């Protein structure tokens, strides 16, 4: 591989790591921070893409359209968390219900299975007009980078505020949080909503980058996010909010890089990606268990929910 190709591969993986990194941060927020196994992701990712695409097609400012994607995703998270907190439907089931329902909603929003954004004004086409950002890879990197920096700083601040602290404590010890006078229903709702807002933001950005939105583009996104989180935690072993967020972004980058390399090797095709991802997650989840088996430590039975 010549240096230019290596550089291109790294830069492309970095862009993907940032754009898909929002999904990983969302998954990290639900699975790790508030301990809410949320599968809404597959639906809310497409929801973000659909909302952004439709608004851009009718000529809405692309930045507003991207914000609207974020807002729509938050609504999806709101639906899931309300099913869980107010109707006491288990988190996993509640999120699957919303995910399935969102498929129809996404089709309704777009009016057709796929929507093209070619020759429309997107955040990327606007950025490409700036001096020095003419190359596709450069403007993709810059746009995704700026968004990632904004999200990073907001979350790094928010998770250390009084409300953010209550959110984190909810996933750690719900009893303690209620004892401290916080309604854990509200923190759960807030956390799941923010997480799905970020996932939908990713959908809105990716749709603009690839110039189309497709109703099936979300399949397996939850596993991709989970794989990124697991890789980031395993590689960087982060401590503290800021490093955790960076580790999750880093994990997404590494995951994307591995996938790109696997595709270049011509051993597998694009269609094999989902299986590879699933296998990565299975290995990542199985290894700690098998290590304990070898050390003959006692292990509780696997949770059913």
């Amino acid at each position, binding site marked *: 591989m010549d240096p230019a190709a290596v550089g291109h591969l790294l830069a492309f993986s970095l862009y993907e790591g940032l754009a898909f990194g929002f999904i990983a941060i969302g998954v990290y927020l639900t699975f790790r921070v508030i301990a809410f196994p949320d599968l809404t992701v597959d639906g809310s990712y497409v929801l973000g893409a659909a909302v952004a695409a439709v608004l851009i097609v009718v000529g809405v400012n692309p930045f507003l359209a991207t914000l609207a994607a974020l807002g729509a995703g938050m609504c999806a998270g709101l639906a899931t968390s309300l099913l869980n907190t107010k109707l006491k439907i288990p988190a996993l089931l509640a999120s699957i219900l919303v995910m399935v329902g969102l498929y129809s909603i996404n089709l309704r929003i777009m009016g057709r299975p796929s929507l093209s954004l070619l020759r429309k004004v997107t955040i990327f086409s606007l950025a490409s007009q700036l001096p020095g950002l003419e190359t596709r890879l450069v403007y993709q990197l810059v746009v995704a980078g700026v968004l990632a920096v904004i999200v990073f700083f907001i979350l790094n601040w928010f998770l250390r505020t009084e409300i953010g*602290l209550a959110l984190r*404590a909810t996933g750690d010890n719900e009893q303690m949080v209620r004892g401290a006078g*916080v309604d854990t229903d509200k923190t759960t709702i807030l956390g799941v909503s923010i997480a799905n807002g970020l996932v939908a933001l990713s959908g809105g950005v990716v749709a603009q980058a690839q110039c189309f939105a497709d109703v099936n583009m979300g399949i397996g996104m939850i596993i991709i996010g989970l794989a990124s989180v697991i890789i980031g935690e395993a590689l960087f072993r982060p401590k503290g909010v800021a490093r955790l967020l960076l580790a999750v972004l880093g994990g997404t980058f590494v995951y994307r890089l591995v996938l790109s390399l696997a595709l270049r090797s011509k051993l597998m095709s694009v269609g094999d990606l989902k299986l590879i991802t699933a296998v990565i997650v299975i290995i990542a989840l199985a290894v700690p268990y098998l290590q304990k088996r070898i050390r003959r430590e006692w292990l509780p039975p696997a949770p059913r929910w």
Partner: protein
Amino acid sequence: MIAPMSENSSLLKLKRISKVFSKGTVDEVRALDKIDLNVAVEDYITVIGSNGAGKTTLLNIIAGVYPPESGEIMLNGRNITKLSEYRCAEFVGRVYQDPHVGTAAKMSIEENMAMALLRGQPRGLRVATNKQRRELFRIALAPLGLGLENRLNALVGTLSGGQRQALALVMSTLSNPAILLLDEHIATLDPRTAQIVLDLTDMIVKREKMTAIMVTHNMEMALHHGNRLIMMHKGRIVVDMNQEQRADLSIQDLVVAFERASGEEFVDDSVLLRPGNVVGVSDL
């Protein structure tokens, strides 16, 4: 506190509180049976009773974990019967038997304390820990003598059970709640740590002039701590003694008092045959 500090000024009033679990099934349990309890300001009540007597249910009812089947709970003249747990937290500090329940393992000591500091207050978008608050946390932790004040950034999961329980105790009193509930909070600690945490409890209750209810299985502890003793049996309060009434009491007297009040043989060995109690008898 504007209320007069006289002995009779009532802080918490339980009026004919009943709580039934699994109502209408064969497992129906009357955990609390028309309980009346008046807790005065600065009362430090110890509660004893056999398993299933309703001690923990009593604390849960006060803390708003679940509402009573019937009856009324008044705190400072305000009806709090139907307030949920997180709303009651404004008035109630609580330390549980299990040190893991009162603290969050994956968060640092200062983050745990910031959670506790804001009990009952609206939470906003200020960063939760700052220089001023850290200073406050250090001052609150220093009397423990455990060195936690120098480890504010340590994750609570890295502390021992005793350290976590001491931290939980400080956290439960940090926001100056109207009433402190202690649910066998030293039962799982080793004897030495248990003594330290118990001494700390007495110290904090005294220093902050707190009103407290402490559930215990240890008769010696029940006799020698606090200023009032309650014995529960089958969901009722069968003995209620103030400082003077229990002053010359031995554990044997306590058993007799129990038998007379409940009108049946006192057969639960678990209360009597604890090592701590045997020591207590020789002390008396």
